[in-house]
């Protein structure tokens, strides 16, 4: 932190002390604004500044977004829930000036902006891009997997032709490649700085970049106190997009949602990111506070009956569940009406819109009939598993389901599983007979969703579902261009099977809630992390 800002801060503190004498005077935000500072509170904790590092958690992805650039980025559009949203259909340049794709779709050539520089003033070169991509595909774990989704698998696919020309060679064309370059993972690192700090057993400088980013992004990290706050400071030389209006953005970690809400309401912070549905519902009625609840694309909260558990191999039982669920009550109590209902859709599937409501709706009569028709007319007992990490929506949901299922003779005991074992039990071992699940695909196409959630053995197919036709359909469709005539029929067929077999019973499409008090310019991103670049403060 440089001198003038230090002095700046002292001036500030002087001011606040004076203000503190008159407790009711809310001068803090005013002070913050005058110095071009925006304060955001969030419940998540950042545990690394390097997305590629193993063990880096979701919250840390925002660093990749805000401090690094990718070759390309997504466009912006009006979001359904109000405010702005990224636009999956529009790919915009970020570090790349322009790009061309060969007719066979196997070669992509990028021209890097010639005025793009890293924070240390060095020019961004194709070599840097190559090094960064190599790193992404070699790091293992999530980044590698994500790269692979776009058909980017081996270093030899990347080539730095000259300083400003970067070429990607694909094994097969895919509609996912270009979008996959716009996700946080393939961000571009200052390879010289990185390599200067690489070691024998740490060739990718994981340890160094873990605490000290070296990029070209819109913001630098001024200070990072793990578990407390991350302070972004603007990089005035940024060429990746319009220069952010905020000089400094402070992301403060506050675990207690109640406290976060209090801070926002009192205007001590300008923004609270990812707030509980209830707060969203209540705050949205308050004057001076803007709440954006953006339905999360390609994400559905589901109830998953596990096929490994005998009774759920009986289609009637699964459908009985689907009819027994008190959708509306759950939607109101667990989600406080934030998000999009995913029940009571029409039976006829005529479009490829996704997520889409299931044809089911609460109907205990129907449910009872189905149970009677099943091989388990006398009912059975089964644990209903939820994750402690997601208790805020899962718990009320589970409680209401428990009551409803008891009505049709399915006795459930609610099992709360700590965050650590949740993934293992639910997704890796797929051992939970009946549980709630909330997969959301980053790349916004139905087939991408089905790839992860309906294909056997894939991580989010926690129901151990297998259907030959689905397997085939997904493989065919995954990389198929959307304008391909076969695309729509395939996808709609998937929908039919999905609602027929019900390995996942849709509940609702969740919303990402953000509340702002004196801030503006929030934009929703599929990665559900905060992009601070477009933010600005509004004078109150």
């Amino acid at each position, binding site marked *: 932190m440089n001198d003038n800002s230090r002095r700046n801060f002292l001036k500030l503190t002087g001011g606040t002390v004076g203000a503190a004498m008159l407790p009711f005077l809310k001068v803090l935000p005013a002070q913050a604004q005058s110095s071009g500072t925006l304060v955001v509170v969030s419940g998540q904790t950042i545990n690394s500044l390097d997305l590629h590092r193993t063990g880096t958690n979701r919250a840390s992805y925002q660093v990749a977004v805000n401090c690094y650039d990718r070759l390309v980025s997504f466009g912006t559009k009006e979001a359904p829930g109000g405010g702005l949203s990224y636009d999956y259909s529009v790919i915009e340049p970020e570090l790349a000036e322009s790009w061309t794709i060969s007719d066979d779709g196997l070669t992509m050539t990028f021209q890097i902006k010639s005025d793009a520089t890293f924070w240390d003033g060095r020019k961004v070169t194709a070599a840097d891009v190559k090094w960064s991509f190599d790193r992404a595909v070699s790091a293992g774990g999530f980044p590698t997997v994500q790269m692979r989704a776009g058909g980017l698998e081996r270093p030899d696919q990347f080539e730095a032709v000259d300083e400003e020309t970067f070429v990607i060679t694909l094994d097969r064309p895919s509609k996912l490649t270009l979008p996959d370059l716009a996700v946080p993972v393939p961000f571009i690192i200052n390879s010289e700085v990185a390599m200067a700090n690489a070691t024998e057993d740490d060739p990718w400088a994981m340890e160094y970049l873990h605490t000290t980013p070296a990029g070209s992004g819109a913001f630098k990290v001024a200070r990072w106190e793990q578990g407390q706050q991350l302070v972004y400071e603007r990089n005035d030389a940024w060429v990746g997009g319009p220069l952010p209006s905020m000089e400094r953005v402070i992301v403060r970690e506050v675990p207690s949602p*109640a406290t976060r809400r209090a801070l926002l309401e009192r205007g001590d912070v300008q923004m609270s990111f990812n707030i509980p549905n*209830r*707060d969203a519902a209540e705050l949205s009625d308050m004057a001076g506070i803007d709440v954006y609840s953006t339905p999360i694309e390609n994400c559905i909260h589901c109830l998953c009956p596990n096929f490994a558990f005998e009774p759920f191999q009986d289609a009637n039982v699964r459908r009985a569940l689907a009819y027994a669920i*008190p959708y509306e009550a759950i939607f109101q109590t667990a989600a406080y009406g934030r998000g999009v209902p995913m029940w009571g859709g029409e039976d006829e599937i005529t479009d490829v819109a996704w997520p889409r409501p299931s044809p089911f709706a609460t109907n205990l009569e129907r449910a009872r009939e189905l149970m009677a028709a099943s091989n388990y007319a006398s009912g059975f007992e089964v644990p209903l598993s939820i994750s*402690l990490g997601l208790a805020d929506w899962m718990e009320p949901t589970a409680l209401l389901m*428990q009551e409803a299922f008891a009505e049709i003779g399915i006795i459930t005991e609610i*099992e709360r599983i*700590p965050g650590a074992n949740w993934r293992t039990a639910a997704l890796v071992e797929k051992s939970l007979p009946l549980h709630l699940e909330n997969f959301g695909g980053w790349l916004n196409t139905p087939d991408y969703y089905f790839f992860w959630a309906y294909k056997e053995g894939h991580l989010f197919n926690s129901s151990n579902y297998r259907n030959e036709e689905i397997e085939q359909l997904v493989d065919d469709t995954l990389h198929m261009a959307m304008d391909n005539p076969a695309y729509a029929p395939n996808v709609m067929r998937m929908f039919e099977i999905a609602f027929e077999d019900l390995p996942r019973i849709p509940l609702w499409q969740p919303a990402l809630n953000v509340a702002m008090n004196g801030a503006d310019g929030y934009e929703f991103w599929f990665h559900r992390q905060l992009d601070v670049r477009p933010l600005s403060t509004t004078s109150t």
Partner: protein
Amino acid sequence: MMAGMTAPHPSRTAGQKNDTTLGHIVYVLKDNPVTMLAFAMLAFFMGCALFGPLLVPYDPLATNAARALEAPSWDHWFGTDNLGRDVFSRVVIATRLDLTISVAAVALSFVIGSILGSITGYWGGWLDAVLNRLLDTIMAFPLFVLAMGVVAALGNTIENIIYATAIINIPFYARLVRAEVNIRRNAGFAQAAKLAGNSDLRVLAVHIFPNALPPMMVQVSLNLGWAILNAAGLSFIGLGVRPPTPEWGIMVAEGANFIVSGEWWMAVFPGLWLMLAVFTFNLLGDGLRDIVDPRKRT
């Protein structure tokens, strides 16, 4: 022995009402209003624990989305929670569970601690040394975190909460009993008992240990209260009892998130109830001690 205080005992009154256990209890209660209060509250909570299910107006588990988050009113004295469940009913029902947990846990640690403490306090030697190190080791753990660890490791069932709470309490009892036994191990009456043909074990069990009870009573009552807080704390972190089982800690934890939005009743009433229960046990101690202590009789 100060001559000043030894008022002569008028021997007539002896063997009269005042001498019976009941009379003694009555005296202890009369003697100290606070103890009186404590016992009254204890009776109240016992009542809730035993007859709660018969008394409560609503099914504590029955949700009612339509009437969620209602403020206290005539038909919902403590209001309703985010699922429309009656907070009052849940609070009352929870009494049984919470008392069970604390009593069971304390009983467990009491028994184990007493045995360990007696043995080491009476025989001493290497056994004493070893056990002391062991107790030190347990004490050296941040107790609450140890409890968390145990529950996390064994899984969060009521039994495990009880075990965890018991484990972290054992050292206190062991220490206390050890000290109490140690000062009496060469007392005249202990030696007399040996002359009367008692084995060491019998001297310890029949003659020495009972004399350690009065001071332990204080510890017991304090721990009963503490055990409740402990269980509540575990629930607060999410390592507690399973929903929808009503439990004070969980209710406060859930309610906590609603305070700021003005639905204070969800947290405040369970919180107060919990506090009252702990309060009761904490006040109980001195009274209990006076009751089990024959020297307090005249």
